[in-house]
Each structure stands twice: as C-alpha cells, then as structure tokens.
C-alpha cells in the first residue's frame, strides 16, 4: 500500500497535474523566447508603486498606467493586489507574468491553509514568493517577464506591519519604513529619507497622513517619469493591511486628497 502524503504544496500539485494530464502549466515552463528576446526593450518596468508603513499596518499606493516602450497601453491597471487577508503585493514590471505569479501565490497560500488547516507562516509565504520568482528567472533573463514585487504584510507575532522587497532572482530584503518599485520610484527615493529624517518614522503616523504623503509622492514621481500615470486622469489605487485584514481606500477619500493637493493645501 502506498501512503499518500499531503504537504499542502501547490507547486507539487501543479506538477502532478502537468505530469498526469500532459497539459502544460505556463508558470512551470519558461516561455521559449529567443535569448535575449528581440523586444526586451519593451520590458522597462514603467510604473510607480509605493509601500509606506503607518501605525499598525502598511499602506500601498500605485498608479494605474501600463506602458510598452513609449506607448501607453492601458490606463486602469491594478498593481496593488491582495494575496490573502494579511498580505498585499505591489508589482512593477511585466504585467502578464506578474499577474500569473500573483494568481499562483493566491492559490498557493489558500491551498496550504485549506488543506493543512492552519495558515501558511509568514516566512513560508515569503519563501513561496522567492520560489515563484526564481521559477520565473529564465523568463526574466530572456527579456520577457521581469518584474519586482513588494510584499506588505501584517505580522501578528509583532503586531505590526512589515515590508519586504525582492530582486529578480528571488532574493528577499526587509525594509524598515517604506518601499518603492518601478521607473518612477528611482526618482523619489531620496524624498522618503528626507521625510523620515525631518518628520520621524512613517510607522508612528496615522493612516491619513501616510495616504496623503504617498499620493503626493506619486504625483511627484509622475512629474518626473513619463511611464507613471499620476493622480489626475485616473485616480491611483490604494490598499492597506492591518490587524483587521486587507482594505481598499474608497475612491472618494482619494479624490478628496487629490483635490486638496491640487488646490494648494500642503501640495
């Protein structure tokens, strides 16, 4: 008699499925692109996503623009996506591959929790992101599919928000106060430091302040980076995670802040 084991590993489940059915699961097999892909230049990750800590959690704000070279492809891309009730991911880079990995992670976390009857540990989740990124490495090297995620989590053991970012190969880094990714983020990186050094850490400030700060930073990034959509034409998306779960900031709240920035209030 063979004893079947259940590790709750979604990757393993997909591999079994692929082996049994013969159906190719795109995530597990790199796309066969010439190396390097002729259109590698299309893969400049034009965007700005920002993760800021606030008292009790982490706020994510992202613009909505998706670009290919100098063409604006889409104006309503959602780059801030909840993975489960304690985890948010903000993505910069190749949207198609990123969404595939996000879909994988959402299933992977839930599959583990549902089958093992306990949530995946924070470290387990972070490791799973690393694994998905390294599985995607051949695509990234081939010039298609390079993307960088920022993970914002609520850590129940520390009762606080935490921010992690990754490089293309899956290496993981934790950042104490803020994280940003995308072409626009390079241009505003110094501003975060200026704010924390002059006004104190983000993690000590209320959500409203962090939200205002983040939208203003996104506005500055859009001024300096053509691939960042900005805050006027289409409102940015904002989500946050705290002890109660993952929440979306209502459009009306964002609109009010944008208007107050435009009318000169602190802007």
């Amino acid at each position, binding site marked *: 008699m063979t004893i079947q084991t259940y590790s709750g590993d979604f990757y393993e489940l*997909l591999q079994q499925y692929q082996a049994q059915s013969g159906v190719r*699961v795109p995530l597990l097999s790199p796309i066969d692109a010439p190396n390097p892909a002729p259109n590698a230049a299309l893969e400049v990750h034009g965007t700005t996503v920002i993760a800021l800590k606030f008292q009790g959690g982490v706020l994510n704000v992202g613009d909505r623009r998706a670009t290919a070279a100098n063409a604006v492809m889409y104006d309503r891309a959602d780059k801030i996506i*909840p993975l489960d009730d304690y985890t948010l991911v903000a993505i910069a880079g190749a949207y198609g591959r990123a969404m595939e990995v996000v879909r*994988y992670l959402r299933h992977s976390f839930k599959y583990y929790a*549902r089958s093992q*009857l306990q949530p995946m540990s924070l470290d387990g989740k972070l490791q799973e992101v690393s694994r998905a990124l390294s599985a995607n490495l051949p695509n990234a090297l081939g010039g298609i599919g390079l993307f960088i995620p920022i993970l914002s989590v609520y850590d129940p053991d520390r009762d606080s928000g935490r921010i992690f970012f990754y490089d293309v190969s899956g290496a993981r880094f934790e950042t104490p106060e803020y994280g940003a990714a995308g072409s626009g983020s390079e241009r505003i990186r110094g501003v975060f430091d200026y704010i924390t050094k002059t006004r104190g850490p983000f993690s000590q400030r209320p959500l409203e302040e962090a939200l205002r700060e983040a939208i203003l930073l996104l506005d500055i990034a859009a001024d300096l980076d053509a691939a960042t959509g900005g805050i006027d034409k289409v409102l940015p998306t904002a989500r946050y995670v705290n002890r109660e779960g993952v929440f979306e900031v209502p459009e009306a709240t964002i609109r009010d802040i944008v208007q107050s920035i435009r009318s000169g209030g602190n802007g």
Partner: protein
Amino acid sequence: MLTPYDFQENLQQRAQYIRNRLRAGSPVIGISYDNGVLLLALKRRGRKVYEIYDRLMFSAIGNQADVENLRLAAIDFAHQEGFVRSPDDVTIQRVVGFALSPALKKAFGDPLTTPFVARALFAELHDAPEGDQFYTLNYDGEFLPYERFAVIGGAPHAEEQTTRYLEAQLTRIPTLETALPIALTAWGVAYEAAQQEDVDAVSEDAARNRLREMLGEAQVEVGILERQTLRENRFRLLPQNQLEPYLKRL
C-alpha cells in the same frame, strides 16, 4: 463450504456495514440565509466544517480518514481547476459530480478495496440566496442537489424527518439570527431520529433536550460563507461567543 462470489450479496453486505457505522454519526445541517450559507455540526475534538474553495464548504459524517481523503481530493481538484482555468469554473456540481462521485462508486463496487465510510454535505454560495446550492454525496457515489437547506444524518429516515421539520420552519429566506435556532433544533431532530427506529416524528422538545445533553461532551461548530464581506476569505467559523446566546435559549 466455500460459497461462490455473489456480486449482489457483496454489495449488500458492504452497504450494511457502512450504514451501521454511519448510524452513530453526528448530523450536519445546511441552511441558506440572506447574507450567506451556513453548515452546523457538533464536534467532539477535531474540526467538522471545512472550507474547500472560495465559495465552497463541506462537512461529513463517517470515518475520519475517509472524510479527510474526500476533503483533500475536493481541495486538490478545486485549486487545480481554479488556477488552470478560473475560480468561476470551480462549481459544486463539478467537484461533487465529476471529481469525487466516480471515485467513491469505484471504491464501493470494487471487492478488493475498502469502501469509503462517509456521507458528505457540500454547500456553495451564490450572489443571491436563490442560487445557493447544497449537494449530498453518499458512500456509493450517489449525489443529490438541494436548494435552501439540506441535511445529512445517521439514517435516511432521520434525514427525512429533519427535512420535514426544516420545510415547515423555513417558510421564507432567514437571516443568520433566525437560521441558527432552527438549525440547532434541526440537528437535535436528526440525531434523535437516527437513534430511534420506530418514532414517527421527534418532538421539538425531545430534539432540544437531546442537543442540550450532547452539549455536555461536544461543541457546536458553525461554518459560514458570507455573501457580502470586505475580507478576502468568505469562509469563517463563527466564534463561540457568538453562538453562546443561541445555546442558552435552547
């Protein structure tokens, strides 16, 4: 003397064996209410009500290992399909009818394998209560769809009685607050009826008495799938303090 293998006799014996073992099983009541679906069961130690997928949950009576096998097979299928295709394609009728039922039937009919000792109840949440669906799945692979409410218990006559009780009580779509007391009494009806062979209809008092008695050694477990929620997961178990007021009023 060696008797020749008789297919029919073999199946009857297997069915009899399983029915005897299911008889002591603790029933499960499913009710669809305005803002969700609930499954109510009594647990002694382990869990009884489980999340399968985004809009799918499950509970079963029977052998623990068999129930686990069913649960994991359902979860495997649902997540595989949800990822490769779409979460919208993971439906109760596909999970029960195609992923699980044939395997149960095969195990039941094959004289060289141990049959599953399990009877399961699945619940699926839709956008409106009218769309909510329940499926019962039997040890021999038989499955049946239900709307509004469903029950699994230790014996068919107990399920029939409980269905009549629920039919009479649930004249309109309930709220969670009105559904819980009905589900609790229905649990008592199902359990009491399964214990007794010849009683035609278990009285509500007898049902509640039995439930109160059982609460000495077991705990009520209610899993819900919420129709409107800000949370990522629609499934959650109701916390014990939320059930307390209903148990006091029994």
